[in-house]
């Protein structure tokens, strides 16, 4: 008999069952979400990704110190050193429109003379300045597009999943229709259509990327909500007569949103890439605006002489590749963590 009565001393139990400390982060996020975060911080590839992203965030924040603008009220305008179409190599001197000297230049180079560190492209646009301030453009546009597409996607997806039936069917067919056109072509068209109405700026491209970018999120969150909707606590809330909107916004969405949120935050890389592609195709910002796609598009007229003028594509190209790679490395780790077939194998 004595063996069946649990003794007050559970030392035996402690040894047989593995006990795990639960940290504040796990308590805060919940076990599922904690697993995602932990998976992201474990692989060397995703850590390299986070380092790259951190580096770009630093460049974006410190842009006015790294490359002080000529006119502080209009910092996104790349300073032009004249109007000649011919690119000039790295280290070429500034002749006109020289912006203030950055603080770090003199201690390193021991000179007061500010040069074109990475050369000038067609039309004498300074490449270094375009890359540094282009980082800000990238984060700005990426952030706006991601937040907007995320909100639209979540609202559409959750309404669709929660009501189900005819509503779900209609909404999902609308999603299918938006997915029919290839993304970059659809965005290109919409940007071209609205540019004459509101003029050349970042806005047409941003609107176009938002309009054709929300469908993925609505599909993901719809799937998550469909599974959470069936859980007992939702049934309990219904039984005690909680309103539809309250069940959806207070009980379902907070529990279903995390995977979509992580996906969205990692989509910045893709958004910036698409924005640069539109810019490269000549749809988007006005001439001379600091964005990577445009700096690269300056090279389009110099294809035959890229052997001499290699710096007009290599520097902005590397910048864009590193930026996208940072997000992809983290995204790759995330895909492994979120893939249900990999569950329990970490």
């Amino acid at each position, binding site marked *: 008999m004595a063996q069946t009565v649990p003794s007050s001393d559970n030392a035996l139990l402690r040894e047989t069952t593995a006990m795990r400390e639960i940290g504040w982060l796990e308590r805060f996020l919940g076990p599922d979400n904690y697993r995602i975060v932990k998976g992201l911080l474990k692989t060397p590839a995703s850590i390299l990704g986070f380092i790259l992203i951190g580096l770009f965030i630093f460049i974006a924040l410190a842009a006015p110190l790294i490359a002080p603008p000529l006119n502080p009220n209009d910092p996104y305008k790349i300073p032009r050193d004249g109007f000649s179409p011919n690119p000039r190599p790295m280290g070429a001197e500034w002749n006109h429109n020289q912006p203030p000297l950055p603080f770090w230049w003199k201690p390193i180079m021991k000179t007061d003379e500010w040069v074109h560190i990475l050369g000038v492209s067609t039309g004498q646009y300074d490449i270094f300045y375009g890359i540094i301030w282009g980082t800000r453009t990238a984060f700005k546009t990426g952030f706006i597009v991601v937040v907007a597409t995320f909100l639209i996607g979540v609202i559409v997806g959750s309404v669709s999943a929660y009501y189900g039936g005819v509503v779900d069917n209609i909404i999902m*067919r609308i999603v299918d229709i938006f997915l029919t056109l290839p993304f*970059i072509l659809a965005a290109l*068209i919409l940007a*071209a259509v609205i540019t004459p109405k509101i003029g050349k700026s970042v806005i047409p491209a941003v609107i176009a990327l938002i309009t054709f970018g929300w469908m993925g999120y609505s599909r993901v969150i719809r799937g998550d909500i469909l599974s959470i909707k069936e859980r007992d606590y939702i049934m309990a809330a219904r039984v005690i007569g909680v309103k539809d909107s309250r069940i959806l916004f207070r009980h379902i969405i907070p529990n279903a949103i995390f995977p979509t949120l992580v996906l969205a935050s990692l989509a910045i890389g893709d958004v910036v890439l698409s924005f640069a592609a539109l810019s490269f195709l000549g749809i988007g910002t006005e001439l001379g605006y600091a964005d990577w796609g445009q700096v690269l598009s300056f090279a389009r007229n110099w294809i035959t002489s890229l052997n001499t003028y290699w710096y007009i594509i290599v520097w902005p190209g590397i910048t864009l590749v590193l930026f996208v790679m940072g997000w992809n*490395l983290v995204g790759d780790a995330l895909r492994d963590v979120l893939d249900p*077939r990999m569950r329990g194998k970490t």
Partner: protein
Amino acid sequence: MTTYIIRRLLLVPVLLFGVTVLIFGMLQFLSPVERSALYIRDIPKNPHAVEGVIKQYGLDKPLYVQYWKWMVGVVNPTTGERRGGIIFGDFGYSRVASQPVAELIRNRFPNTLDLTIWALAPVILVGIWLGVQAAVHQNGFIDQAARIFSIIGTSFPTFVFGLLVLMIFYANLRWFPPGRLSDWASQVAHSDSFHHYTTLLTFDALLNGRFDVFLDAMRHMLLPILTLSYISWATFVRVTRSSMLETLRQEYVTTARAKGLPERVVIHKHAQPNAMLPVVTLAGFQVIGLLGGVVITETVFVYPGIGSAAAQAAQQLDVVTVLGFALFNGLILIVSNLVVDVMYAFIDPRVRLA
């Protein structure tokens, strides 16, 4: 099976209606005068005549009337001549290129198709081979190499990769020029003795026995093919690898090994066919993606296909033309998506039974 196909077919009119409404909606950003390019070549100089045009084609009518006229066109009551009408294949006029949009598409589309056909073979064959090898030697050298290669591949924007390739192989080495054909080959291709059997230039060159023209065309297409393949390889390798890994863990594969079959047979005869299911879908979408999404590659390499034409029209804000391309693309995509879905149902019984 039949119900699945019927259900899938019923979706087609919905998608067709939706895509046309979407494009019609974008047309509404234009003023009635600009929209007249859907029906007539030039805007009349005389303001009175402009009003007449707007009246004649109902460009100020309610939206549903305009949508209908856009669909079926407007017949001139005296001459019986029909203008516009997208269901008859009339997409309006490109005022920048000063020719009908449909004609522009007819001229450009064979080039895109030509490029797509040649780009697909390396993508699919090498991609599948690499993916299978990576899975079989999991965490081995090929696997690690393929992983690094695929992360770099997905991080390279098409236009950056294209420009770098052009810099090395054209600007520095002068091996592979951009464009479609050299001047001499272009003269041959436009001469009367050159017959256009298929309208696809490389195949026509072979059928005409002009091997030199074929080689010249390939010389121009090699870099775009390389760019398109490199970027799709990454996805292919990844999907093939993960699907193959999953299949290799199945019990029937263990059974095959237990029977004492050679490893080569186990992998290529037993595991690989089943692992190819998701790869088939992906291949379908890659064809679709290549047909529609070569906008950037064609622009970088100054290749005269529909992608570069759409980009050029968009840059010059020739909206009617761009929307004509969008419509054409939408139609191709709806049909090819249907083909992929039905094919998939034939291959994978789980889809049609669900």
